[in-house]
């Protein structure tokens, strides 16, 4: 059994306590458990679509752990479940997005699973077109700087998506104004089927930081504590007013791109095997065990807790109601019903002149 000294050593230089380490492990383990449940639900026909972050969790938890919850801003992408849970999203809120029920805080059932967002926790709504959010994070950071709010914005995208023009326009503007923003690229080697070598003209996305006037840092996404160190440095730097950082976390995509994808069609067996071996979860567990942070009792407790959390989230989400179809016309504008929905033609049946259900004519 490890000594107390060893316990204190790991992460001590980073200012992390034993409780922090266990919390980080818990976040990774719970995210993994939720994610695995999603695939089970998908295979059971209960949720039609899954997109998940298995293999990314170590990087996500490490990089986000030093953010100030409810103060800073997170601008995520569809694989960000571990980042989001670290930043304060509840497993129930994650799970209900899979079921797209009416009380789903992300979108009220309007968006596909994976498109998270919670206003009261400063988590910006995810959309599908990739990389647009990198500019939003930059704009959030601009406002933070001008309003002197002391906030940092962190945003995430995949390595394939990082080739979009929006990415570079964001880096450029953030670099010019030294905005408090952290750009994270989670490089899992593939953009759906297209390997890094066909996506990017350089082996490392981080190489591009310098050309935009900011540090470009590569971090091993399976090394949770190094991710923590890297994230903290970038966040601190941003908050100090020293400008943005580009972080590339080398991670592994342990699942297919999504439940619609068959990765065996374009990846070799060896490649898939190698990908599994870069799983951050067992590696961090082993690290914590070695350091004596995780003992059998703690592990058992965490395992039990995670089961409860996943059950609870699933049961709760599944039991919620579908949204009322009458709600579908709300929130087009702040102040008005959807354009032309309220106009008089065919008398009271104006908008439903086309034969739609009566609920379509309702107020906004």
């Amino acid at each position: 059994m490890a000594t107390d000294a060893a316990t204190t050593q790991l992460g001590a230089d980073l200012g992390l306590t034993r409780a922090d380490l266990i919390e980080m492990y818990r976040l990774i383990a719970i995210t993994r458990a939720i994610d695995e449940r999603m695939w089970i639900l998908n295979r059971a026909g209960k949720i039609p679509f899954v997109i998940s972050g298995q293999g990314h969790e170590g990087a996500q938890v490490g990089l986000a752990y030093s953010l100030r919850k409810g103060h800073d801003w997170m601008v995520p992408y569809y694989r960000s479940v571990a980042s989001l849970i670290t930043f304060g999203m509840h497993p129930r809120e994650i799970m209900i997005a899979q079921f797209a029920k009416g009380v789903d805080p992300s979108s009220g059932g309007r968006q596909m699973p994976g498109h998270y967002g919670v206003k009261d926790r400063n988590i910006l709504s995810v959309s599908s077109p990739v990389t647009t959010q990198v500019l939003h994070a930059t704009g959030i950071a601009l406002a933070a700087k001008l309003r002197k709010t002391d906030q940092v914005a962190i945003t995430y995208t995949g390595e394939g998506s990082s080739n979009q023009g929006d990415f570079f326009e964001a880096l450029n503007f953030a670099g010019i104004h030294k905005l408090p923003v952290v750009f994270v690229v989670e490089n899992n080697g593939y953009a759906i089927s297209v390997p890094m070598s066909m996506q990017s003209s350089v082996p490392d996305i981080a190489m591009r930081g310098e050309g935009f006037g900011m540090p470009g840092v590569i971090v091993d996404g399976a090394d949770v504590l190094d991710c923590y160190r890297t994230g903290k440095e970038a966040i601190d730097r941003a908050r100090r007013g020293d400008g943005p950082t580009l972080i590339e976390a080398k991670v592994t995509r342990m699942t297919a791109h999504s439940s619609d994808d068959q990765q065996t069609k374009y990846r070799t067996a060896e490649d898939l095997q190698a990908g599994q071996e870069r799983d951050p979860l067992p590696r961090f567990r082993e690290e914590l065990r070695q350091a004596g942070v995780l003992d059998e009792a703690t592990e058992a407790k965490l395992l039990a807790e995670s089961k409860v959390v996943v059950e609870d989230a699933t049961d709760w989400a599944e039991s919620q109601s579908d949204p009322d179809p009458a709600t579908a016309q709300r929130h087009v504008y702040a102040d008005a019903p959807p354009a032309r929905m309220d106009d008089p033609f065919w008398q009271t049946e104006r908008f439903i002149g086309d034969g739609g259900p009566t609920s379509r004519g309702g107020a906004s």
Partner: protein
Amino acid sequence: MAVRTMIDSIRETLADEMRRDETIIVLGEDVGKKGGVFLATDGLYDEFGGDRVIDTPLTESMIIGASIGAAINGLRPVPEIQFADFIMPAFNQIVSEAARMRYRSNGAFSCPITIRAPYGGGVHGALYHSQSVEAFFSHVPGLKVVIPSTPHDARGLLRSSIRDEDPVLFFEHKKMYRSVRGDVPDSDYVVPLGSAKVTREGSQVTLVGYGLMAQYSLEAADILDSDGIRAEVVDVRCLRPLDTATILESVRKTGKCVVVYEDNRFGGYGAEIAAILAEEAFDYLDGPVVRVTGPDVPGVPYNHVLEDWFMPDPERIATAARRLAGY
């Protein structure tokens, strides 16, 4: 003659054309080994190799911009945009560049490219995997816009598009890829761009649609038939240039018209058809031009009850036509 799904018809036509003309290349996201997310390019990489079937980076502006350049220098690119929703980053290249190249150079340069993209809702794709984007492009002089509704037309129109000397947007309704089957001749036939088709004859009301809505209009005509209402159905097929004559001829006969489109109503493509009718069919219209469309909300929502709320369907078309017929 063989029975084919839409997606098979498209894939086989791409392969045929690539065999016929070695200047044709296919490029886009995941079009290579994966064969496209809907398998529209499945097998092409194996047959034609990585030089002619290019997995591009995830950058739509580049896909179109490089296609324009490649067309300028002797190739005939057939870029794929993975979902029509993701064509927006390429909007500038399509609208400012491809569409205007011939005109601005006084006819010197041209852009023979065919941009393929799956569009449309009803497949739980939510806001960003369901969009109908045809109104944006059919408004633009210099572009041609095609939307087939049968495997037969998909083949004939895709051939015409690829062989055309101008940029064509070729939109494929993703809900139809595997659900629609039909006869596809083995011959090298084409369906000319700019020709609509009367897909069902009728006398009392004309239903005009394209893509999935052309099919739903046929289904609506069946429903109406059982009510004793004879509806004529016109499948637009090519949105730009539009075969106005065929639509006017039908409305001259029936005196009534329902224009159907899945896109948001306000400023959608069918508004132009209604405007043409208001201008050119005034003398023989016996009732208002009615539109059955998607509602004016910013996207097709995901949850099935919301999605159903959004999507026009044969019942709604039939209800509107019934009411109009009784006008």
